[in-house]
């Protein structure tokens, strides 16, 4: 079942890549500093839709990357780790709503900020993951391409969310592009098993957080369209 799903995932990825073309070009409102006044060319709903599409794609690609890595490098015995969840994921310095009830209680503002923080927390690790994956001798190109793609899309997603925040909340936020994101290269040569475990953990954790982003944004959209129905649950 796993390889089949993996294949299906690859097939879905192909469609994703095709559909990414429509999303490839940046948001209309994306510009250097993201001033509000410039982003009048796209409606909020459309922007939100596009952001949600971005998040969905990122989540699916991350899931495929995780599967690829898992099939390639992770022994089967450790596959159950996925069930374990995010025990080893990095604890965030901010509180992220964990349950649906919590989500229903928080406001839109908090949703957006949560999303933004999530995104920003993963920009650097993803870059790091890119470099570390290249060290693998037999890392499939698909995996490398996917991780690279995810890194790029994260940035654009961040931009979009920032614009959303400005639009919806009339707040100004700092994006990671505003300050130089210099990755402190962590070139510690860990043993291979550790490296594999570490990377695997990174991938699974990122996948989880991508799912969070998608869910948050969808919930936000639901609230935009049917506030009453979405709140009541």
């Amino acid at each position: 079942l796993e390889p089949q799903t993996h294949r299906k995932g690859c097939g879905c990825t192909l469609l994703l890549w095709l559909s990414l073309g429509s999303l490839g070009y940046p948001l209309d409102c994306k510009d250097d500093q993201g001033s509000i006044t410039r982003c009048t060319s796209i409606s909020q709903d459309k922007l939100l839709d596009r952001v949600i599409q971005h998040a969905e794609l990122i989540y699916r690609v991350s899931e495929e990357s995780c599967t690829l890595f898992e099939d390639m490098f992770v022994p089967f015995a450790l596959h159950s780790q996925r069930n374990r969840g995010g025990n080893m994921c990095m604890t965030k310095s901010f509180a992220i709503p964990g349950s649906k009830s919590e989500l229903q209680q928080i406001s839109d503002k908090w949703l957006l900020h949560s999303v933004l923080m999530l995104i920003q927390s993963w920009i650097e690790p993803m870059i790091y993951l890119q470099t570390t994956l290249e060290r693998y001798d037999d890392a499939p190109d698909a995996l490398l391409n996917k991780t690279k793609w995810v890194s790029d899309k994260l940035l654009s997603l961040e931009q979009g969310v920032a614009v959303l925040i400005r639009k919806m909340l009339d707040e100004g936020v700092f994006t990671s592009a505003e300050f130089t994101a210099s990755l402190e290269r962590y070139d510690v040569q860990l043993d291979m098993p550790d490296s594999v475990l570490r990377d695997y953990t990174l991938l699974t954790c990122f996948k989880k957080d991508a799912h969070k982003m998608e869910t948050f944004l969808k919930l936000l959209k639901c609230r935009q369209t049917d506030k009453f129905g979405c709140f009541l649950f």
Partner: protein
Amino acid sequence: MERQVKSGKMVVRYVAILHLQTVFLLGIETLAVLGHAPTSEAPRQGPHFTSCLSREQETFRCWWSTGSFQNLSQPGALRVFFLKENSISRNWTECPDYTRSVPNECFFNKTYTSIWTSYCVQLRSGAQNVTYDERCFSVENIVHPDPPIGLNWTLLNVSRSGLHFDIMARWEPPPSADVKTGWMTLVYEVHYRERNSSRWEVLDLEIGTQQSIFGLHTNKEYEVRVRCKMRTFRNFGDFSESIFVHVSQIPSKESTFPVTLVFIFGAIAVAILLILVIFSQQQRLMVILLPPVPAPKIKGIDPELLKKGKLDELSSILSSHPIYKPEMFHEDPWVEFIELDLDGMEAGEKMGCSDTQRLLGVGAQLGSSHGLGVKDDDSGRASCYEPELPEADPDTLAAICLAQHEKGATSLLPQSNLSATTAGGTPPDPDPAPIRDPIPCPTHRPESRPLVQTQLSTHSWINMDFYAQVSDVTPTGGVMLSPSQQSRVTEKIPVEKKEGQDAQVPEKENVGEQQKKAEGKKRFQLLIVTPEEGAYTSEVDAQKVSSGYSHEKSCEDSIPQTIQPPAKKISQEACQQLGGPTGDYQSPYLLPPPIPVPPVSDYTVVQDVDAQHSLLLNPTTTVTATPAPTPTPTLTKPSPAMAVGYLSPDLLGNLPL
């Protein structure tokens, strides 16, 4: 800068945590592996969790079993504790809700359910001193959605053959799953199979709530069911209720009807094409299929004869063929041969095959063989081929020769011919022209008369003394008597005249004159009979000719080779008339001499043509026998040279030459 340091620290801390947790993980891993081991591992197994799952990602339940420890089946003997990953207090909390209705089930409601956080549950004994089992998981990973509801199908279409059909299956997402808000993104999987089949056909994951199924067979019952799962996860939910699809085949001939029509039209079109091809290429096909059979051909035989079944003529031709019956030459006394010169024959052929020319022996040449010299290259032109043409010319030539040397034994014919030739167009003077001897006659003479009478063709002209020899045939058709003889034309005309006119009298005249000439003169006097004169011969000429002519003698001697009855008549009459005094008798016949030259008739008159196409110069028929005109057509058929004024051999014999 500060940010960089911060990020660097974060990374370092991250790695450290990873390291520690790795060890922790490994430790737990072994326990987890043991925990997930199948029950077949050991017959005696303690209490353990059987499964933990969530249906809507909002709550979850855990079940356990007591295993083989029966003493722990009572409620409260086993307790479940759980630990959330991010819980502030790192204490194990007991199950918030032991389901009363269901034994060994712990239910975690919404408040206790956190997504994206890992849970660990422990199965402890009542006293909490023994931990039988522990599990850790994340809620989203144990989500098994409820089955979709409302599965039904609609018919899309039926194939033209009526054997296949397509349906569209529709369903609704499970009500428990919050798809609307995007809390759960479900994908569906449709299965179908034939009623009695054991293998399910699995279709691809469908994110929508409908799926089309193609290629189903009519008259077969199908079972369709659907299940769903979260999009990026692997746990399928339960299957929905199966529905049964059945479409009965509509019996209709309509599908077969067009096919039959197509076949029929196709066959007709192919047949038409074939016919067109055959008709357009008819000629070539005929040549290929039925090569022309070469028609039977025998040299010298007209295929027309074969077709019409004229066996008599055919046999005559065959018999007369020199190849088949060469001995005929010597056997049949009545067979006359015309000595033909090959060159003259060619000339004659070029002119067109007139029988008259043939008869006269086209270009008979001295010294030519007495045999049939006709070139046998006739490819069926029977009309031109007269193997049995009597050689009048050799006879005449012989006659001429004989007459030259015999006094009174010459015939008028050669004399007249000679005289005619000598005259050469000049008006014949009353005086008998000197007889030229154009022919180097052979000395063989005694048998001239009998030869003449018997008409032995074998000895041809050498023994004949009353024949003039034709040396050549002019292109115009005239026979050239050797040498420097009169043109044939003049002789022709008398023939025509004879045929068309009642020229008995003039013929008689001519004959008489010729006789007279023959008798009277020892010299040959060739008189030219002009056609304008009506073949009248002058008395002078007649006198010349008939000098020394004995009437009785001439009359007695029958004309052996009188072909023309008029000629016979003439001879008879001439005899009678000439019987009297020559001078007196001749007077009434004397006519103003328009240069009446007796026709250059150095050939005998052909009397008849027998069945074998041989000219009969038959002397048996007496002069008195047939005074009446014999059938002219028979004579015209071979069209012998009916020159007026032919002198019969007997008459010639009476000539006092």
